[in-house]
């Protein structure tokens, strides 16, 4: 990693990453500007989480450079599926984990208590501060981990699949919350499988499958050609209210009801 005085928060140039002998990312070029709201889409195993790790600095690239703005504060919100929900921590204790530097004493200072209370209030979960993390709804759980990330006052928030496995209402709730945080100046880069529910609503989308296959506004990037190269499957793109709507296109080789073959379903 190098630091530079460039305008971008993070700039990746020719980044290649490997697990064992396998290349997970190949020659990735990507810039994240201040205030950006970027969605990274791609199939499972396309390197989305690795990209987040490289940007966060928890993984070093085998080749290429990662340039972060000097003193950049980055926060990372993992997939909620990776969390041990039976772990004995309350909401406030979980959020306080972000204060791992500086004070060594186990118990929080008055200033830390106040900071936790403030961030929980900002995310409308202050009344839950003494609840065990298992006793929360999906949206509340996501807010707790966003609160933990926000306690470090980051300039860039990295989120791994924030809407994985959530229903439509919760997806809207999370998207609105992130939109609000972005409007206050926080740059956000998230990964998602949800092309229509999330990616199409963001100002900037990156299609990734080991390398960047397309980047820009959803209307410019979510095209049949780019999506087929990204997912290796044919997709159709419709338009609704000025936004792209991605539709799987596949052919039944055999219809179980009619017995007819090659019936196109779109």
């Amino acid at each position, binding site marked *: 990693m190098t630091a530079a005085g460039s305008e971008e928060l993070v700039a990746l140039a020719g980044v290649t990453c490997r697990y064992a002998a396998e290349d997970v990312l190949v020659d990735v070029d990507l810039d994240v500007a201040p205030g950006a709201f970027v969605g990274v889409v791609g199939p499972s195993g396309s390197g989305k989480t690795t990209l987040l790790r490289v940007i966060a600095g928890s993984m070093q690239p085998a080749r290429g450079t990662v340039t972060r703005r000097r003193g950049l504060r980055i926060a990372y919100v993992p997939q909620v599926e990776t969390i041990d929900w039976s*772990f004995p921590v309350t909401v406030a204790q979980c959020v306080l*984990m972000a204060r*791992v530097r500086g004070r060594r004493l186990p118990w929080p200072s008055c200033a830390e208590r106040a900071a936790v209370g403030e961030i929980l209030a900002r995310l409308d979960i202050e009344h839950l501060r003494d609840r065990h993390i298992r006793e929360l709804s999906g949206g*509340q759980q996501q807010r707790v981990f966003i609160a933990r990330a926000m306690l470090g006052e980051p300039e860039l928030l990295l989120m791994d699949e924030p809407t994985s496995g959530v229903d439509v209402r919760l997806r809207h709730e999370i998207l609105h919350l992130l939109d609000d945080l972005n409007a206050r100046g926080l740059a956000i880069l998230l990964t998602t499988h949800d092309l229509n529910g999330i990616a199409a609503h963001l100002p900037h989308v990156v299609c990734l499958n080991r390398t960047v296959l397309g980047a820009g506004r959803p209307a410019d990037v979510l095209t049949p050609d780019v999506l087929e190269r990204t997912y290796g499957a044919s997709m159709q793109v419709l338009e609704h209210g000025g936004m792209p709507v991605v539709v799987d296109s596949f052919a039944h080789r055999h219809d179980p009801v009619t017995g007819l073959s090659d019936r196109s379903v779109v």
Partner: protein
Amino acid sequence: MDELLRPLQFEFFRNGLMVATMAGALCGLVGVYVVLKGMSYIGHGLSHAIFGGFAASTLLGINFLLGAGAWGVASALMINGVTRRRVIASDAAIGVITTASFALGLALFAFFDGEGASFDAALFGSILGVGTQDVIAVAVVSVMASALVFLRYRALLFTTFDPEVADVSGVNTARMDALLMLVLAGSILATMKILGVTLIAAALVIPPSVARMLTNSFSRMLWMSATIGALCGFAGMNLSYHLDVQSGPTIVLVAATIFGVIFMATSPLSRRGQRRVRPAA
């Protein structure tokens, strides 16, 4: 009452009682991390691995704490390294390293015809061989473990709960894992004579499991687990003397009984608690 206090007139029993109480607290404290990190199998395996070092140092006439200590540290670092590489499943890697070491210990004893009191004590624990050196060893490891938990509380908690984000947040998780493994190896080494390698795992797992049933707070779980471990060590050692049964089994049976009682007592509560586990308004 006199009958209960009578063993305290013997120095070996006073040493054994002190060591058992401190060992219980130590294993209870370290065990919280072992249980929450899902390292129970590592604790079990490591105690068996150290048995190889115990056998080698006994037969070579080397100081037990030095010989088995070096062996234990090497095993702990090797297990830690193998589990972090994720090339093969961690349980399989631990199985290979620790059972090979345990088997080597058994083979050494068999080859040099070294079986006897020390062999049984290493396997099942005994108060007979406990001396001042053992009291000091357990006290030193207990102080070191407590200091680590106190001074690195936040980093250890973050590493235990969410290692990936802890790493991104600037915590050296590899160092925290290595420190935990070293403390675990030290704890096993220091408590081996009193608990025995085959029963140490229970002392590491049962008190934290009981504490977990009683609280949802990490900090409370730490002191509750250490207290429960100390109580089990104290009560188990007294029972060991009066029932004339080895110390390891009695300490573990006391712990298992407490586990059973708390499990039964909290089951209806946990069922009610689970019904409460629904989205908060």
